[in-house]
């Protein structure tokens, strides 16, 4: 059982509110409901968002 709470965090792109539930993990990607930016959870306490990095396409062996 995980305790699912919700916190509201400011979107770094549009300053809108993004709801993050407490089961979210570090480095997870979330989408801003207002501006549709992809955001990365770069810290959990306090909950901190940043614009998600671009995708690097290639994988190795």
């Amino acid at each position, binding site marked *: 059982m995980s305790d699912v709470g919700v916190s509201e965090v400011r979107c770094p792109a549009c300053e809108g509110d993004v709801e993050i539930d407490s089961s*979210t*993990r*570090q*480095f*997870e*990607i979330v989408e801003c409901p207002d501006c549709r930016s992809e955001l*990365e959870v770069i810290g959990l306490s306090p909950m901190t968002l940043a614009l*998600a*990095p*671009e*995708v*690097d*396409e*290639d*994988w*190795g*062996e």
Partner: protein
Amino acid sequence: MSDGITVVKCGGAAGVDPAAVCAAVAAESAAGRRPVLVHGASAETTALAGRLGVRLRELTGPGGEVSRHTDAAALEVLVLALAGRVKPALVAEFGRLGVPAAGLTGLDAGLLRARRSTTVRAVVDGREVVVRDDHSGRLTRVDPTLPRLLLDAGLLPVVSPPALGEDGAPVNVNADRVAAALAVSLRAERLVLLTAAPGVLADPYDERSVRRDYRLPPRGVADPAVGGGMTVKLLASRQALEGGVPEVLIADGRSGDAVRQALAGTAGTRIA
């Protein structure tokens, strides 16, 4: 202008027989053609990781594609397997067959340079996350000077990842893509990607359904019949064809006969 170089890529994957590949490639060399062998080490990496107690993790990309997570421990095991096990075995096998071969990794003399993907996206437990400890990346430059020097001296280059990263650390790069990029940069006449199947199959569950020819779609490689490890082979094929390699084959590496037929052009799937 072509000078008769054939780049052959062998697995990697369990099922591809290194001794069979060496025998067929050695015969190619004895016949006056100029083969270059590119290899991976996936089966050996898995085995060695098990013995070393290193857990190899997989990452699922946002598009569903599955790949190894090359964290620092996995990179160490990968380099051990590629340079310390598969390559010495192949080079010794060529020595036994009387064909002078020389082993190279991408670290040697700037052969393969790569840009490490410092951030990759993956799906872990159903959630998309950013992974920052991956040591794989994208080939940025191939310098054909050293393999060409060896070929001109009558030697058979045996090439594998890793590549040298911008910070001087090894970077895991896909061996099929290495083979394609090397074929382009050496202006090879042919690229032969060996795999544990007879080629591209019309029905993935029926090995008799091998296609003689496969035309790549204008974009991507999407075809419901083509999946798994074949996707990266088709991407590598496209890269080689677009880079001017006249002939690209995906063929069976599981027996000496199969490899000889592939090198004779009488088996496998010709990609166009």
